[in-house]
């Protein structure tokens, strides 16, 4: 919530309805951010990992090696585009395109911020700063992320290389197994927020108290976010699953350079290789962004006090995404690679059952809290009913005993409840 800033834009500027422009602004910010941060991301990763490994890292091209990734991209542009013998040409060419398109498609629905507006009647409302404000945003990102495996499998298949084939097979098995645990971990947060829309999930964290009876200044603070709110286990499971989902160390089996040389992209060169590279980093950004939005409060500052609230929400979001990227680098520098069977065992035998059990525990706990809240002397007009739980911002408020009516009018949700309820049940 950005309400603390007390800046709200007028909804109508002459004939222009400003909230309608928000997706375009988001598109510019997000595309600009992604495309400019990508080389920066590679530089950050290389410098951080160099620090951890007690060496210098890139320091020759440009100041402190900042232009090194740019030089690499230029080099990749001018590399010969090698077409190996006996490849399935059409699939061979289309695989990296699939990978990169789906990666960008997934990251578009991430919500960067909520922009407050005031309409002519003086009512305040917020519009999420995102390219596509999809009401099943979470499901959409998961779908795009799991479709990305097609790029990898097709690349492995079309390359006519046994190592690539093994890499492709590993990738498909891995992504399918970790998708489940990832979906269930996210379901815990959906359960708390009562919505699949990313903006609503962040709003739910903004209006939440860390625990019933907590002091008011902690409302929407770092303690109230869903990493703690869902009981710590979902965020751990999600973080493990997101690393596995993007095929990064220690789960980088599809491209294990010491076993499969480079796995599915062994036979790719030039820009086709760069496309795989891009899709991997964009996927990292996307899942880190999802982590930030769902478990770490999205654009919210950690505390609603002066120095924190002065930083714009977009920056908070980017800071949180970057912490996810740092985690990726840290893991890569520290851990050995898992073996294939251990990876499968971890996904199916430990993470999936734990996520399932925890989902039921959390659902039970929420129900119990709700019962207690509804039997409390404070009369809550709609507390007993199920429908307000499902309506976006009313959800967490009813858990903490706050009447949903006292919450401000929620953001314009064109399809309330009826759409999200079945969708959340069908998420895994």
């Amino acid at each position, binding site marked *: 919530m950005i309400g603390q800033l007390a800046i709200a834009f007028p909804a109508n500027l002459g004939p222009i309805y400003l909230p309608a422009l928000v997706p375009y602004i988001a598109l510019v910010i997000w595309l600009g951010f992604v495309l400019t941060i990508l080389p920066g991301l590679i530089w950050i990763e290389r410098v951080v990992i160099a620090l*951890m*490994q*007690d*060496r210098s890292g890139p320091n020759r091209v440009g100041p402190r090696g900042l232009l090194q990734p740019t030089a690499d991209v230029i080099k990749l542009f001018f590399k010969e585009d090698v077409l190996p013998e006996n490849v399935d040409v059409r699939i061979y060419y289309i695989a990296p395109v699939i990978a990169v398109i789906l990666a960008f498609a997934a990251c578009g629905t991430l919500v960067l911020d909520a922009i407050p507006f005031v309409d002519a009647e003086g009512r305040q409302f917020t519009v999420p700063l995102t390219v596509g404000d999809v009401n099943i945003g979470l499901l959409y990102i998961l779908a795009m992320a799991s479709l990305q495996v097609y790029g990898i499998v097709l690349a492995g298949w079309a390359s006519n290389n*046994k*190592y690539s084939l*093994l890499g492709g097979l590993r990738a498909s098995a891995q992504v399918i197994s970790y998708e489940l645990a990832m979906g269930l971990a996210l379901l815990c947060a959906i359960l708390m927020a009562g919505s699949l829309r990313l903006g609503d999930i962040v709003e739910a964290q903004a209006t939440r108290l860390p625990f019933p009876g907590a002091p008011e200044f902690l409302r929407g603070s770092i303690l109230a976010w869903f990493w703690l709110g869902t009981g710590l286990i979902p965020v751990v499971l999600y973080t493990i699953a997101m690393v596995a989902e993007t095929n990064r*160390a*220690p789960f*980088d*089996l599809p491209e*294990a*350079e*010491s*076993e*499969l*040389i480079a796995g599915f992209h062994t036979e790719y060169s030039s820009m086709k290789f760069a496309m795989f590279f891009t899709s991997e980093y964009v996927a990292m950004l996307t899942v880190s962004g999802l982590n930030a939005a769902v478990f770490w409060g999205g654009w919210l500052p950690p505390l609603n006090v002066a120095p924190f609230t002065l930083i714009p929400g977009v920056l908070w979001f980017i800071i949180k995404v970057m912490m996810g990227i740092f985690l990726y680098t840290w893991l*890569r*520098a*520290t*851990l*050995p*690679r*898992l*073996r*294939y*069977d*251990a990876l499968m065992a971890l996904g199916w035998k430990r993470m999936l059952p734990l996520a399932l059990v925890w989902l039921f525990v959390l659902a039970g706990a929420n129900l119990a809290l709700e019962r207690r809240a509804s039997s409390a002397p404070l009369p809550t007009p709609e507390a007993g009913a199920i429908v307000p739980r499902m309506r976006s911002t009313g959800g967490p408020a009813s858990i903490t005993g706050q009447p949903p009516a006292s919450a401000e009018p929620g953001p314009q949700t064109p399809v309330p409840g009826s759409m999200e309820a079945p969708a959340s049940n069908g998420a895994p």
Partner: protein
Amino acid sequence: MAIDSTRIRELNPASVQAQGVSIDPLDDTTMVVNMGPQHPSTHGVLRIVLELDGETIVRATPHIGYVHTGIEKELEYQTYMKGVTLTDRIDYVASLLENAAFSLSVEKLLGVEPPPRGKALRVMLMELERIASHMVWLGTHLLDLGAMTVFFYAFQQREKVLDLKEMMSGVRMMTSWIVPGGLRGDAPEGWFERAKAFCDDFPRAMEEIEDLLNANPIFRERTQGVGYISAEDCLALGVSGPTLRAAGIPYDVRKATPYSGYENYQFYVPVGQYSDVYDRYRVRMAELYQSREIIKQCIENMPDGPINVDDRKIVPPPRQELDSSMEAVIHHFKLWTEGFHPPVGEAYVPIESGKGEMGFYIVSDGTNRPWRAHQRPACLMNLQALSKLCEGRLIADVVAIIGSIDIVLGEIDR
């Protein structure tokens, strides 16, 4: 794949059979994957033909010879003194140990032994080299397993050893510093202090690495129970070194048949229990601490005196003598052109190299060159166990196993 093997069969069935490839064209249950010779984790140019059922290995056949240099044959054409420089190139990550093995055999032919200081300095250099050799193993083994940071930590320690070698000899890798009769030269001023500083710093660096690995669940999962070989199989295949000791047999040449005065030093022989990749890792890590102990004892009890045999027919005179003594000039000239003539006979002195029992079998016919020089390469014997170690495991285990038996292709192919 099936199509490939059919094609090969039409060409030459015998060679296909020899390569250990399934030649039944209708058998499409297994896939043949050629691992190497250009593969990042075969530690050189080893080629392994893997027959896979899914990712499970049905058969693994190593092929060697891609860096065959003919050093053994070349040794027959060089004088003994020049032969030392060839031995450097055999196991290029632990050249001093190769120098020592060759020199010890030649000294046995000559019937001489270097004075105490020469022996102690040799022990110290050999243990330093063992640390350098084990650090290459540690770094590359963990790099194969995907833990890339250990590589840099391990090579930092190796760099310090190489710096010590450079300070002594001016060369970092191919020093040829241990020669028949002693060493090329004594330690320079300040060398022992620097070696002591390295010893003092070494445990802290080791602990840093062990903290990352010993209790790491992923590392244990990757290594425990992987690559088992029984002690009987080890003995039957001629496996030696840490791989044998990890199988529970406390055979260390330094203890079994001490050379160069190893009987005067206090150290333990670490022994494993389960004979898996993890045990081999622990045995080598424990050996590193023992090497440090030996180096410390060397520094503390370093005897004074000459380092070389006092025989001008074997060891060239010091530089300053050449200015004053005609005899020294003659000795110098004769040694560097013709070399020395060991009596007719044969000698084999095994040493404990970083990889296992290694030694040179040298036959002398009384001339200034060996009539025959043959090396027992520890790596080649250890590589023989590879097929047995890999059967029924996964591809990911192959790289772990290759790393754990610590091979250097230069020594295998010679």
